[in-house]
């Protein structure tokens, strides 16, 4: 190809890259600086409300991966189901959130957290006590707008990135 335009296009492109030297960085130093995630984040691990759960097993039927294992027995005195076992294998969970949406008694929540890596596969299987909400395990606002209103606002790159320095 013959050399036609004496590199005007290249010079134009370089002017853009040089201007970028003067821009603010948009990145964050992750372990030290943390950004707020979405209020509806579908974070690791489910959170289960033992009081509200009736043992209807709608969540287990909805789960596309089949990771929710629930065993119930009929208690004659109280005339309702008693949850014997509620177990979630989070190693196979794809965090689609369908169980949370399907729960008719609003007893399931997605977790408002990330960084839940484990050293052993066995620790990924969570049963009754491990599924309850605590200070570390907060529920997220996914399919629960009343919880979403209480969570901090999500940090957006749109607000952070102010272009020129």
């Amino acid at each position, binding site marked *: *190809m013959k*050399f*036609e*335009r004496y*590199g*005007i*296009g*290249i010079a*134009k*492109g370089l*002017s*853009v*890259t040089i201007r*970028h030297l003067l821009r603010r960085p*948009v990145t964050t130093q992750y372990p030290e600086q943390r950004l707020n*995630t*979405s*209020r*509806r*984040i*579908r974070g690791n691990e489910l959170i289960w409300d033992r009081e509200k759960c009736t043992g209807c097993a*709608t969540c287990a039927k*909805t*789960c*596309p991966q089949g990771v929710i294992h629930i065993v119930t027995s009929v208690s004659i005195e109280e005339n309702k189901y008693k949850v014997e076992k509620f177990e979630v294998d989070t190693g196979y969970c*794809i*965090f*689609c*959130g*369908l169980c949370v*949406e*399907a729960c008719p008694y609003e007893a399931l929540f*997605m977790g408002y957290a990330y960084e839940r890596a484990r050293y052993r596969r066995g620790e990924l299987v969570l049963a009754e006590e491990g599924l309850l909400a605590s200070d570390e395990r907060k529920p*997220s606002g*996914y*399919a629960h*707008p009343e919880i*979403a209103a209480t969570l901090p*606002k*999500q940090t*957006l*790159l*749109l*607000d952070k*990135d102010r272009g020129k320095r």
Partner: protein
Amino acid sequence: MVIKTEPFVVNIGPAHPSTHGVFRMRTTLDGEVIVDMEPVFGYLHRGIEKLAEERTYTGCIPLTDRLDYLASMSNNLAYCLAVEKLAGIPVPERAEYIRVIMAELQRIASHLIAVGSFLNDCGAFMTPILYMIREREKILDLFEMVCGQRLTYNYMRVGGVSQDIPDEFLPALDKFLKEMPGWIDEYDRLLKENEILLARSKGVGILPRELAVNTSASGPVFRASGVKWDIRRADPYSIYDRFEFDIPTGSVGDCYDRYRVRIEEMQQSLRILKQAMEQLPKGEVRSDVPHLIRPPVGEAYGHIEAPKGELGFYLVSDNSIAPYRFHVRAPTLINLTALRDMMVGWKVADLIIIFGSIDICMGEVDR
């Protein structure tokens, strides 16, 4: 004295940085010139079509996220349209608008990666793709705000969307729409007239119009060959007949045209987004759909203009809770069938560019 040469076979891939996934090209080279090329698919086969036949209609939506993982929203939309056609489920007005907003944002995000990795393959190492990833990040933030995840959205449902958009979404989208045209201009200043890029991509890997029609290519690859074919116009689905937008086309069908068509499509998507945001009505976002959908016996094909081409889902129902047959018409698999004709006669260095200009996603090709 004449030197005797003979062609020899070189495998490019399956694990090669420029194949964007696990794809193998069995090339026959004569020196540096490609004499023959045979694509080898199937390294990422996960059996998604078979898996889907054992799940409920709603349970298949997370599976469609994992087809073209750079454009999950479009996959969700195409699948939901197919099920709605099959079962005759209406969609509320507001949900239709939210779907269009999401699909167009997804088109911009997918094209940013497509253009960025194409320029990366051309040798503009990392600079353009990082600029584009910055803007894609802003779109992913919006998606995260709406549905809680950044890659596998699982947002659309049969008969609407999973939940309404939050209050802070529309101001953020407005801000994005205001600043995005400036960034697109910056990409153009950066590389549109770059002499090296022009020399490497103009006239390279031409897909002639007739061949493009005969291989049933679609999407930007097809439009770059000069055919004005866009399913949003040719067979309007959802509410696309209410918006005003142009269909950008190329003239020659070379790699440069494909790159330009994608940039221009992003501008058209911004136009659609602006109109959809202004017209967005209030109301319900999900119609009343039973928990387990049992469509009547029959078949349906729902197709949309996904960022990479015509994405279609063919479903057959036998009146049970799971589809009897679930077939995906993946755009990039069909676009790849024209690859050999584009490549033969070019050199190995051009192979990388031609392949990069098709914009493939192996998750969708092999599924």
